[in-house]
């Protein structure tokens, strides 16, 4: 898919909370230490953090890099599966906090782990049609992990924000995108349910791998690009193994996915996962580098993007904290503190 006018990323920003819960701590509590954790640790939001506060900080970082006046932004979209309210938009709070209100299209997006990339697709469409000049697309989550479940090891917190605007002012031009979705019930959370449920092994082959590889292959077929043409690739990271295998299936090397591979350190940030991977890549990319990003959301679908970094990346990169600045700011907590922070104690 290509818009009528080419669009790109004007500014980007990441956010990861300060707290880390080691995987071995979860293993200690639930399996006497007998389960090898899939990730070293995961990020945990503090008591005063949620998707709204985290989205605000990522958005401020994106605006600092872009140098765009907030009043010029006409859409603020927040994709998440952890919106603090069931009814009342996260996006209107974010829009107000960054100064984009009131001449604003504000909405929350929901599609499991690809709600943020879905917002990016829509932003490309509105900017690319000429309806608006700037749209802010955010993917952010404070993922819910059922105590003792396999997903508790990885359900992390974090995400990224992208200001989408005209390609001529972009630090990375979005050359093309593709979306692929089917009704595949691999992972879900019912209304009022505190924790999600999942289909165990069904989450792999018919869900993650099918959608990620279909979206990526269709995009590359459309643009004529080969895996070797890319310096970086980012795939949604429910754990470290899935993106590694998807990369191998598509012909991408470990070196290509290394820079955007954050799940070993922060876990799966759900709607933030592919997007924060892209922020880490943009922290390293050089002008001319081509980047592939493929998200995955359960239920199920994938959005794929082909980008090329421009010279503008070099001057804007240092205007905000890098993704690694947030990742290296860490305070380890134990399961008891984690239980308090995540509201798992009933009093």
């Amino acid at each position, binding site marked *: 898919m290509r818009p009528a006018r080419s669009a790109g990323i004007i500014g980007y920003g990441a956010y990861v909370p*300060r707290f880390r819960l080691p995987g071995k701590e979860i293993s200690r509590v639930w399996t006497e230490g007998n389960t090898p954790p899939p990730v070293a640790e995961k990020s945990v939001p*503090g*008591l*005063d*953090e*949620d998707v*709204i*506060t985290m989205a*605000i*900080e990522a958005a401020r970082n994106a605006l600092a890099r872009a140098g765009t006046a907030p009043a010029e932004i006409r859409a603020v979209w927040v994709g998440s599966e952890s919106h*603090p*309210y069931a009814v009342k938009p996260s996006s209107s*709070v974010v829009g*107000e*906090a*960054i*100064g984009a209100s009131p001449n604003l299209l504000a909405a929350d997006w929901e599609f499991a782990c690809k709600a943020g990339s879905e917002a990016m697709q829509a932003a490309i469409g509105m900017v690319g049609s000429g309806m608006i000049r700037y749209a802010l697309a955010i993917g952010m989550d404070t993922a819910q992990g059922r105590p003792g479940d396999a997903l508790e090891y990885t359900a992390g917190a974090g995400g990224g924000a992208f200001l989408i605007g005209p390609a001529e002012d972009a630090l990375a031009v979005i050359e093309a995108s593709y979306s692929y979705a089917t009704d595949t019930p691999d992972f879900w959370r019912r209304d009022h349910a505190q924790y999600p449920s999942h289909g165990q092994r069904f989450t792999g082959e018919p869900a993650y791998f099918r959608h990620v590889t279909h979206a990526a292959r269709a995009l590359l077929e459309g643009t004529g690009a080969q895996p070797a043409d890319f310096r970086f690739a980012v795939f949604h990271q429910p754990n470290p193994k899935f993106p590694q295998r998807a990369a191998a299936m598509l012909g991408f090397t470990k070196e290509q996915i290394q820079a955007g591979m954050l799940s070993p350190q922060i876990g799966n940030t759900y709607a933030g996962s592919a997007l924060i991977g892209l922020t880490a890549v943009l922290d390293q990319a050089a002008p001319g580098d081509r980047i592939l990003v493929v998200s995955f959301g359960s239920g199920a679908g994938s959005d794929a993007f082909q980008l090329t970094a421009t010279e503008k990346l070099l001057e804007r990169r240092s205007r905000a*904290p*890098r993704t*690694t*600045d*947030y990742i*290296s*700011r860490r*305070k380890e907590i134990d399961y008891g503190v984690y239980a308090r922070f995540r509201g798992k104690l009933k009093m």
Partner: protein
Amino acid sequence: MDITRHWRLRRQRYALEGERCVHCREYIFPPRDICPHCGEEAGPLHTMSGQGEVYSFTVVHDPPTGYEAQAPYAVALVKLAEGPLITAQLTDVDAADIKIGMPVEMVTRRLRTDGPEGVIQYGYKFRPHLAVS
């Protein structure tokens, strides 16, 4: 909890929107009718940079009603880079690491909630300046 009051003050609470006096050029926070520095009419609005330093602080172990969920927490007098001295919670810092004169920056965080079904109040807090590579 007073929804209307918080709504009126949302710009100052979310983003430190104050004023810069058109007469004496001093910065004012929160916004008010009369400039406390020169006594003339205050304004226009000016959004503060969010940078400042800890002027003094204490740690609250016995919080007032509505603030129990996040206790214990530190409350500081923060001297903004623009001059005004404001009261705010500190966050993302262990109490033992807080120092007078410590550089801090504004972040927007959850202040309190009106029970599990009420509104969530967001507002400014300050955290140690994030180390940037």
